[in-house]
């Protein structure tokens, strides 16, 4: 666990023309294969940090290298980076309601040239792995909250990412589903050797990670071992 997959130095991100300082000089390092929880109360800047690491937004200043890519100096659209290196899971699962579970899993691959048959097989295998082999043709409204989030997990893995970023992945689930999804995420992370970053405000969820980074008012508090 020696290679650093994320290096952040003095990250600053402000909103409303600088009036709101969401991140105020965040520095951290995350190693390849780690499961790290970023936790903190609402407004601490954890989702902003996740957006920066996920190349969904850019910092105002600071340095940020993710999976070998300098995201601050990179001026072009970072969509390719997200497609190749990242798997994203959101609190509200963010599936497309009109598409089936299988089609939702395939969505990230539609922009990628490659053998459709292999990709299709990979998507089916992932749905089977998350326990939804009999629900591949169900649409999100026909699935339970836990099942939807498991589809989102499969979608995050379909492009074989180096890094999974999960923003409050169990925030809208009951405790049973929460445990199932967390266990599944850890299993898959270990199996595939990927790095997992969980953003959560729930200390119970944070406990499932190898390490916890706590944010408060846009700053990192002293890292705590889980």
């Amino acid at each position, binding site marked *: 666990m020696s290679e650093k997959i994320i290096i952040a130095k003095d990250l600053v991100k402000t909103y409303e023309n600088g009036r709101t300082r969401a991140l105020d000089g965040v520095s951290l390092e995350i190693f390849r294969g780690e499961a790290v929880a970023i936790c903190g109360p609402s407004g601490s800047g954890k989702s902003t940090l996740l957006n920066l690491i996920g190349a969904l937004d850019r910092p105002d200043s600071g340095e940020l290298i993710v999976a070998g890519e300098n995201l601050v100096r990179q001026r072009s*659209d970072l*969509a390719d980076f997200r497609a190749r290196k990242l798997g994203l899971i959101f609190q509200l699962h963010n599936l497309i309601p009109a598409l089936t579970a299988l089609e939702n899993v395939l969505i990230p691959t539609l922009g990628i040239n490659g053998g459709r048959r292999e990709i299709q097989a990979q998507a089916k295998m992932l749905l089977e792995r998350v326990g939804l082999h009999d629900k591949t043709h169900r649409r999100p409204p026909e699935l339970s909250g836990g099942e939807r989030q498991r589809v989102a997990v499969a979608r995050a893995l379909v492009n074989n990412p180096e890094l999974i970023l999960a923003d409050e992945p169990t925030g809208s689930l009951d405790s049973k589903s929460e445990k199932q999804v967390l266990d599944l995420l850890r299993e898959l992370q270990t199996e595939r050797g990927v790095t997992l970053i969980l953003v959560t405000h729930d200390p119970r969820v944070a406990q499932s990670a190898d390490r916890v980074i706590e944010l408060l008012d846009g700053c990192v508090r002293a890292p705590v071992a889980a």
Partner: protein
Amino acid sequence: MSFTSLVLKNLWRHKIRSLLAITGISLGIATIIALGAVADGMEQNLIATLRSGKADFSIGQANAPMIILSSVPQARVAEIARWEEVEQAVGALVSFSSFQNNPYFMAIGIEPEALDLGGVTILQGRPFAREDEILLGKMTAGTLNISLGESVSLDAQRLRVVGIYETGNLFQDAGALLYLPTLQKLKNRSGEITVILVKAKAGADLNRLTERVERAYKNELVTLRSAEEFNRNYQSLSLVRAGSWLVSLLALVIGGIGVVNTMMMSVFERTREIGILRAVGWRRWRVLQLVLGESLSLGMLAALAGTLMGWALARAVVLLPQARGLIAPAYGSELFLKALALSLVVGLLGGLYPAYRASKILPQEALRYE
């Protein structure tokens, strides 16, 4: 699932809205097909008329708004016939008459010896020899079930059918031929004809001959050898075409606005979805392609529906009793290609702005969007 199937799924999700957008464009396409087929049919008939028989060219009145309104002094026939390059020149009076309850029946007055030059083949009976005799085109005889020897009424004048003819031209075969002086008398147009059919002598230079006619009768007569010349001199066909384009353009603009509206609503409703696509790695260009793919598919489906509607419309026009024998729509591949191209252009233009807006959606903004 492929990219194309995602495009079609997105249209299918909002069936009614897609259908309305398709209807908007397809009405324009149907107009183009129907009016275009009618105009093309008229032009083809015209070419056949101008080239019918053994005549090398026709002569009509200069500046007449329509060929049917052309008026040429009959004396010109004899004058031109005397020219050394001319083998034969005959006059014909073309007029709409009332015939067996049809007020728009085309009657052609001609001298019996000019029938051959006019490309007339007698199928039954014989040419007319008297002022009270008439020849019916095979379509007229067939449609109205009239036989040789029967008496018919043309502008309230009783005439006896002595023959059935064919020229291969729709207008003429749906009309009747009669002795020129009879029609002149019936129409009160004594000494007047509509066109002169000219057959040049073998080896005569047709260009020089037509130039000679137009020089000798400047501002009075024009020579007609092709549909282009006809269009240049008589604006009826051009007017039909211009009218058809104007109506079609209007319909297409309305259709285009429908596409913009449909696609804008669709993009607005899918802001969050598009944000998800961008977040999971779709490039702006891919999002642009998705929305343009949807609007182009609307255009393509509208081309298909519009073509069918246009074809049906043109068929319906042909079945109208007033149009029978006068209109034979021509469905050329060029017309269909033009309709398809226009439909795709409308789809593309209508989708451009919504696609641009969609491609500008930021993933982090969209994911916050409720």
